[in-house]
């Protein structure tokens, strides 16, 4: 019975369609809007990626005294715009000609990329592995985080260590925001509030990290012998329960912070002063 066409490829008989399992053709039988969460996650992350890529490569409009965009802080090349009291330290000298944001963003990017929450978010949202619980994934093979490159996710704690000084510098930036545009101390504008909110969220996100929870106390076997670390672990545990919310809140706040500086730097708005 040669028809001249290739026979259709046999149905992939793995996973829920494995011959030993209950014979149900559907990939899933969920009746709720299971696709909504991964779709929203993907959309949100994508929006941030587009925005931050544009801003990181823009190499412009990131400073409006006294505010520096968190994307460009600390600014580590000679091509940075001058900022009084920093945070620009030209450690990379003059050979760096690309956007100085690229030098520093690698750290928060790595921190978030290897974060246990973001991993879940993009594995589900972008990679559909799985798209949602009990919804069959489209891949024919899966090795998880057992091989290169995903085995590198185990480096999360080093990015956590790196995220600490970055958060420290952003704190310093927030202190500098208590100046006015002439660098006189003891003033606040709307921008100062934006920076304050952002830094609180950045710290909360950083400290609620699963690696932090482990390092601060989770790795201990006997809490009773380390009462201080136990108490710290309990606090971090409470924050950790909100890690997802903090991840989103700080992602949005850091983008808003940058956007606020952009609006000031381009002269679109002026900073409303409080005192």
């Amino acid at each position, binding site marked *: 019975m040669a028809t001249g066409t290739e026979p259709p490829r046999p149905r992939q008989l793995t996973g829920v369609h494995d011959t030993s*399992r*209950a*014979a149900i053709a559907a990939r899933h039988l969920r009746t709720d809007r299971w696709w909504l969460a991964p779709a929203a996650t993907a959309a949100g992350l994508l929006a941030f990626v587009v925005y931050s890529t544009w801003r990181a490569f823009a190499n412009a409009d990131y400073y409006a005294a006294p505010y520096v965009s968190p994307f460009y802080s600390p600014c580590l090349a000679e091509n940075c715009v001058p900022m009084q009291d920093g945070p620009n330290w030209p450690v990379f000298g003059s050979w760096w000609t690309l956007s100085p944001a690229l030098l520093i963003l690698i750290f928060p990017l790595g921190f978030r990329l290897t974060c246990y929450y973001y991993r879940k978010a993009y594995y589900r949202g972008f990679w559909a592995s799985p798209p949602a619980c*009990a919804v069959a994934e489209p891949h024919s*093979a899966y090795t*998880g*985080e057992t091989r290169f490159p995903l085995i590198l996710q185990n*480096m999360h704690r080093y990015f956590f260590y790196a995220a600490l000084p970055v958060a420290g510098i952003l704190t310093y930036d927030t202190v500098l925001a208590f100046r006015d545009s002439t660098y006189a101390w003891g003033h606040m504008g709307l921008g100062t509030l934006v920076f304050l909110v952002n830094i609180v969220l950045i710290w909360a996100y950083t400290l609620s990290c699963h690696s932090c929870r*482990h390092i601060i106390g989770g790795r201990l076997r006997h809490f*009773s012998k380390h009462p201080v670390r136990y108490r710290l672990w309990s606090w971090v545990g409470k924050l950790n329960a909100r890690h997802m919310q903090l991840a989103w809140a700080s992602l949005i706040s850091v983008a808003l912070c940058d956007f606020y500086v952009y609006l000031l730097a381009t002269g679109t708005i002026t900073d409303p002063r409080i005192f």
Partner: protein
Amino acid sequence: MTATGTGYDARFRIWRGDAEGGELRDFTVEVHEGEVVLDIVHRLQATQAADLAVRWNCKAGKCGSCSAEINGRPRLMCMTRMSTFSREETITITPLRAFPVVRDLVTDVSFNYTKAREVPAFVPPQGLAPGEYRMQQVDVDRSQEFRKCIECFLCQDTCHVVRDHEENKAAFAGPRFLMRVAELDMHPLDAAESEGLDRKRTAQEEHGLGYCNITKCCTEVCPEGIKITDNALIPLKERAVDRKYDPLVWLGSKISRRRD
């Protein structure tokens, strides 16, 4: 007092069949106020399908026998109240889809018992007689959370590592038994190390911890509300990192040789 006055007819689709094949069959059953899905299955057995196979036991969410998938979601039938559905909707019940089917709603869950055997048991500390064990509550809290597990195997069912990839079953213990490894590693008196057993290392090397991509479906389905991912799997991953990818911690443990 009884709720017969408030009864209504609900439509169900229930998978019937065995390893040879099967299909979703339609049923219309009476439902009364306050009932759960398992009650309806029992009513079907008593009135329309005497040989409908289903596993159940305690009817109170404590034994973990009546696991199935209701409208595509892994659930305990005894803990799914009919009031969570609208009267119009058709409710679909299938057996767990990660395990071989036996008949109707009953699956072969021997995978889980095999995996249970692969986790080395608690190692009692030398030199402590029965009755001499002293442990502080804060030190047993974490393992106690994991011991709430009723072994309904919903987490094993929903986990895409094995649900979607039969071939991973050999290498991957599944959330329930990785949590068992975590439970023992956090047990204040487990003396595995004295026998040369490093649970942190074997979690990754023998029980397939690396397959877990922490997408949290296990936590989502757990009827006991155990934070499997946050409290067991991720801490276990961090402990594996201590052993395998963190030279500082490794060095420190070699120098101080102190168990905290």
